[in-house]
């Protein structure tokens, strides 16, 4: 009997933490005073807001971030990827993309704002601490990529994300995640390269088997034809003997 309120409390806490997790993933700013109902309502509004974003703009951001598009892309999935992205300089990003990014990062912009203005607002929204962290990541990335590997990561496929340098990985995802991502990219590249090598070897072996089988078939066919030829030649000789015999018999 006395367990019921405790269990309910645990369930409530779990439900709330689940809501908060979802809200965080969608880049929402959460206030403590919001009740569960309020949070659910605002989550639904946020989802609607993301669904109303321009698809072209979202794809521009993915291209700019050099991030591969998921196999079955939905706006929500793409938005979550973009929100996990920390890249701070916005050169090369289209106006549509900038507008989408500003909406996703909860930066207030006006319809008439130019690209430069939106970039400025986005930078300002990071705050001084965000700016310092970004510069730190850039510096660490630069130092590490000089020490470890200045070249882009090994790319076995035509995947855009694999052309990122270690510095870019660290700049975009922070030191630990960036290093992990860089290493993962290198490992993926290595594995895909090895897989390609194995596939090439298998193809070569299959071609070799096919060629040998064709040779064997031709040899076998030639042998059979030779046997027919020998049989016919012997038959002709016997027929000639028979002819000779018949001739002699007729003469006698």
């Amino acid at each position, binding site marked *: 009997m006395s367990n019921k309120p405790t269990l309910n409390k645990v369930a409530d806490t779990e439900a709330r933490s689940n809501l908060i997790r979802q809200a965080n993933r969608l880049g929402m700013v959460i206030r403590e005073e919001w009740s569960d109902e309020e949070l659910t309502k605002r989550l639904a509004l946020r989802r609607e807001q993301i669904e109303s974003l321009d698809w072209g703009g979202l794809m521009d951001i993915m291209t700019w971030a050099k991030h591969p598009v998921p196999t079955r892309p939905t706006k929500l999935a793409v938005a979550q990827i973009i929100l996990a992205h920390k890249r701070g300089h916005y050169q090369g990003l289209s106006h549509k993309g900038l507008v989408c990014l500003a909406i996703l990062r909860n930066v207030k912009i006006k319809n008439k704002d130019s690209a430069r203005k939106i970039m400025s607002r986005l930078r300002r929204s990071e705050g001084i601490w965000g700016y310092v962290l970004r510069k730190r990541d850039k510096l660490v990335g630069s130092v590490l990529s000089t020490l470890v590997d200045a070249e882009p990561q090994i790319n076995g496929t035509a995947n855009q994300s694999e052309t990122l340098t270690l510095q870019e990985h660290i700049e975009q995802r922070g030191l630990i995640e960036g290093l992990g991502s860089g290493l993962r990219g290198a490992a993926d590249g290595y594995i895909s390269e090895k897989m390609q090598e194995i596939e090439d070897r298998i193809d070569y072996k299959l071609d070799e088997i096919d060629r040998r089988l064709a040779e064997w078939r031709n040899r076998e066919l030639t042998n059979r034809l030779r046997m027919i030829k020998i049989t016919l030649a012997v038959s*002709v000789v016997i027929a000639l003997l028979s002819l000779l015999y018949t001739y002699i018999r007729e003469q006698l």
Partner: protein
Amino acid sequence: MLRILTEHGVDLFFLWRWMLAVTGAVYTATRAIQSLSRWLGGLDTTDRINRIKQHYIVIHLLRIRLRDFWWELCQIVLLAGVLMLVVRMHYYL
């Protein structure tokens, strides 16, 4: 024995030729049927591996180029022609 056969008008060479033809024909037909049934029995299953084998064999058969064996084929045609001619010549003697 030989004399008896000759006296009864049995041509020994004809007998030998006839026996050789019958034996050869029976032997060839038996071996051909055996080989054919072995191939068909081996491939006449519904499992995937044997179906792949069937397709592969068909592909290999289709890939045969007769121009690779033109000399052997010409010789065979020539010998067959000569044989028919020699057999035909028996009737003119």
